[in-house]
């Protein structure tokens, strides 16, 4: 079922663009399709995939950003996960983290559970929510040209971006899900583990 205002972007194309030449970008992904999408671009130790802890992705990003102020942190998550942690948009804005950006893959649905409409499919505008919380840089992309224009900004600004993807479901790509492994390899890749 589709609606006239549905996004049209292919989520795998969007995430492939965001993750192209990742360098030493620190990436946190929200449970469900955002984790699969980022994993599908190639597993790397500096990707921290969530398979649960719904609503926590952005705050994990903030913690990393505060701990590593000279590194760039990108949060990639879905609209449902961001909605569950909507208060964190206020907490992050209040804390201030110039090295943190958030990209929300917005299909206006809870894709993992049968594509029920989320609040963005009803009445909520997450870009406006972020702006109202004090994010001074916000954007929405509806075309791949706009995604490409946001790509460098997501690696240089304290930007909150909504990416309007279609509701099409993709084959599941399952990156590692052992949290202790993901945590340990992330810290080792950052060089913060002392043996």
């Amino acid at each position, binding site marked *: 079922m589709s609606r006239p205002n549905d996004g049209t972007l292919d989520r795998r194309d969007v995430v492939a663009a965001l993750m192209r030449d990742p360098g030493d970008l620190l990436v946190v992904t929200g449970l469900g399709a955002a984790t699969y999408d980022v994993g599908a671009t190639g597993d790397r130790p500096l990707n921290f995939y969530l398979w649960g802890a719904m*609503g*926590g992705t952005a705050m994990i990003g903030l913690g990393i950003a505060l701990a590593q102020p000279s590194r760039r942190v990108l949060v990639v998550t879905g609209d449902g996960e961001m909605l569950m942690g909507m208060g964190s948009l206020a907490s992050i804005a209040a804390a201030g983290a110039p090295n943190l950006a958030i990209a929300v893959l917005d299909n206006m649905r809870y894709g993992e559970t049968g594509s029920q409409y989320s609040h963005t499919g009803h009445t909520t505008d997450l870009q406006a929510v972020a702006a109202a919380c004090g994010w001074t840089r916000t954007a929405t992309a509806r075309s791949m040209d706009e995604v490409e224009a946001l790509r460098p900004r997501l690696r240089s600004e304290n930007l909150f971006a909504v990416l309007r993807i279609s509701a099409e479901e993709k084959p599941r790509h399952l990156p590692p899900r052992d949290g202790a492994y993901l945590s340990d390899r992330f810290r080792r890749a950052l060089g913060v583990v002392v043996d």
Partner: protein
Amino acid sequence: MDNPTWQESVYAALKAARITILGYVPDAGHAHLINAAHADPDMQTVVLTTEEEGIALSAGAWLGGQRAVMLMQSSGVGNCINMLSLPLNCRMPFLTLVTMRGEWGEFNPWQVPMGAATQPVLTAAGVHVRRADQPDEVAEMVAASAALAFDSQIPVAVLLSQRLIGAKVFVK
């Protein structure tokens, strides 16, 4: 110089544990620690809209190589439960100081159910719980709990009893 208060000793214990990020949902019982953290240029403070944010914040700090603590009151423990799967699954430390309500001279009945449930709920969720009732045991308990959390990479909660912090009194 006067002897430090137990609250001052707790802040010193957090500093000695090399904690550099402090997340909090305010409580009157934490007022000293919150003020001390804001006055400390080497402590990053994050005010949270809900307590589960502090668990995710602490996880991120650990991933980035720093140590965090979260301050909350017992009513906030119930907001945390699913998020506690994060440190457990990822074998990460988590340290929280919880001021207790609803147990000692409480005037507000709405605080009583979560106050009574705080310790069993945390235990059921896999958190190691310590409880301080006496002023002279708090700082040592916080220091030992920080060592347990960060060295053994487990979640640890220190409950600060309502008798210790003083029951909140409302007067007309």
